């Protein structure tokens, strides 16, 4: 039966989402129940099974191989997520399979399944990132040089898309602030601008004749947003290398903003004095602002923003939850916008 009654919704909400989402914990739970293990010891058992102190690892049959040999060394020691300060959450993780197969990455097509289907041959090695603009040390750096001094860490963030769906994803990466400090921005650097790779040959979305985006995709942050410790440069997910559809080899994650701010497959970072143009804002300024902070009170012309669907959902289990200001990171970032009218600066 397709049509459900109200009582169905309620009963599904009684089942904790974590039991539904996290298969490993579910299995551990059933084993525990079967063998009469006390519930108290179960959490310890589950995290020990995870190994390395990481909350989650990609299933071995789906895990990606290293883009280049030096990556393996980099990924050999990853610091577990810091439990406080917004760097982690105890919410149920969105399963790896969903994280890597349900993507908005228009360079590879506009359907959610297009990026995984069309990015299989995408080359991420060699890769370099140009550092430009108002910095003391501009230049083109290999990815190895970019990553070298940084210790990778796990960060478990909520990801809220403007299309009203959300996920909880264990990223691997390091603070953008640490990278920015290395290149020594000048006093004129008020904003940071990011560019995705422009390569129509490997990115079919950029070849489309009927696209209305002017490629390459670009995004930007105010300097204080970029320097906030939550702002992450991600190179991995679920303890493993980023798959191309998730923005390999290096992408931005700004957890308190709508997902489109978190630009993928970055090849250029430029420091500017004036506010940079950003792709969705260029396309429809009345729909997409520069800030794009998650805000349940300011509705997008296409979608109300006070609720979201936490993926995965099934037709018979509603997973709608209330959207929180700044995607639940208000404590960490609300002060950045003090005195600003957020309904105008959406």
């Amino acid at each position, binding site marked *: 039966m397709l049509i459900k009654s109200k009582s169905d919704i309620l009963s599904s909400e009684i089942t904790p989402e974590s039991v539904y989402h996290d298969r490993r914990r579910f299995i551990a739970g059933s084993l525990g129940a079967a063998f009469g293990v006390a519930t108290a010891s179960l959490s310890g058992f589950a995290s020990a099974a995870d190994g390395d102190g990481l909350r989650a690892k990609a299933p071995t049959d789906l895990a990606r191989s290293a883009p280049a040999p030096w990556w393996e060394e980099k990924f050999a020691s990853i610091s577990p997520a810091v439990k406080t300060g917004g760097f982690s959450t105890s919410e149920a993780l969105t399963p790896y399979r969903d994280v890597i197969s349900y993507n908005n990455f228009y360079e590879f097509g506009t359907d959610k*399944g297009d990026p995984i289907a069309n990015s299989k041959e995408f080359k991420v090695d060699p890769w370099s990132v140009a550092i430009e603009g108002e910095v003391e040390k501009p230049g083109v750096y290999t990815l190895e040089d970019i990553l070298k001094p940084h210790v990778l860490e796990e960060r478990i963030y909520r990801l809220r898309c403007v299309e009203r769906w959300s996920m909880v994803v264990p990223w691997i990466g390091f603070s953008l602030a640490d990278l920015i400090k290395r290149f020594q921005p000048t006093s004129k650097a008020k904003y940071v601008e990011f560019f995705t790779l422009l390569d129509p040959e490997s990115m079919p979305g950029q070849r489309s004749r009927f696209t209305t985006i002017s490629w390459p995709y670009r995004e930007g942050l105010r300097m204080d947003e970029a320097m906030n410790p939550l702002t992450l440069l991600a190179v991995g997910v679920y303890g493993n290398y980023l798959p191309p559809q998730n923005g390999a080899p290096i992408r931005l994650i700004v957890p308190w903003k709508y997902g489109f701010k978190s630009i993928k497959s970055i090849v250029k970072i430029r420091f500017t004095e004036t506010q940079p143009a950003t792709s969705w804002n260029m396309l429809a300024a009345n729909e997409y602002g520069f800030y794009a902070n998650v805000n349940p009170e300011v509705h997008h012309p296409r979608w109300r923003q006070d609720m979201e669907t936490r993926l995965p959902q099934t037709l018979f289990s509603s997973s709608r939850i209330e959207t929180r200001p700044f995607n639940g990171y208000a404590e960490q970032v609300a002060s950045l916008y003090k005195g600003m009218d957020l309904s105008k600066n959406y």
Partner: protein
Amino acid sequence: MTKLAKWSVFCLGLVPFLTLLYGALSNTLGPDPADTLAAETGEWTFRFLLLSLAITPLRNIGSWPKLFPYRRTFGLFALFYASLHFVIYLVFLLQLRWSEISEDILERPYITVGFTAFLMLVVLGATSTKAMMKRMGRHWRQLHKLVYLINILGIIHLIWILRTDLTEAVFYASILLPLLAYRVYKYYARKAARQVSLSTPN
């Protein structure tokens, strides 16, 4: 139209529905099945609308009079998938929050346009029986010309949903345009013929 052909077409028309139903029940439609269902039923509505529109030119140009009854069959299948599309929107996307439906229909242009097209399609479906055809006489033809508008609204609905890459809308529009152009051509051809017959002295 033989019985066998009729039943085959009917069963084929149900294949997308059964495939989606199976996907929904076995939970193989991805992490957001409601979204998938809405997109798929919307597309199948379009395909059946275009098939229905293609019957008349095929009958005239290809002289396949046997195709004619399928114009209604395809039209009704379009209504069937449009209804599913609407129910999926109400139950799974809107989750029956009735307070939001008026806001959606009034303030979100892509929903306004889609909903308008759906209402028109319902009217056409309700008047699609032979009895109604007889009762309405020449008004029936006039009313059922709404199907052209429904198709155009459908394209607009799709363009607003796609937002950035219009390839899909261009694809459907490139099928719709010749089908509409054929009607325009026929209209002027008939008008010219009438004028000729009027001006010809006896």
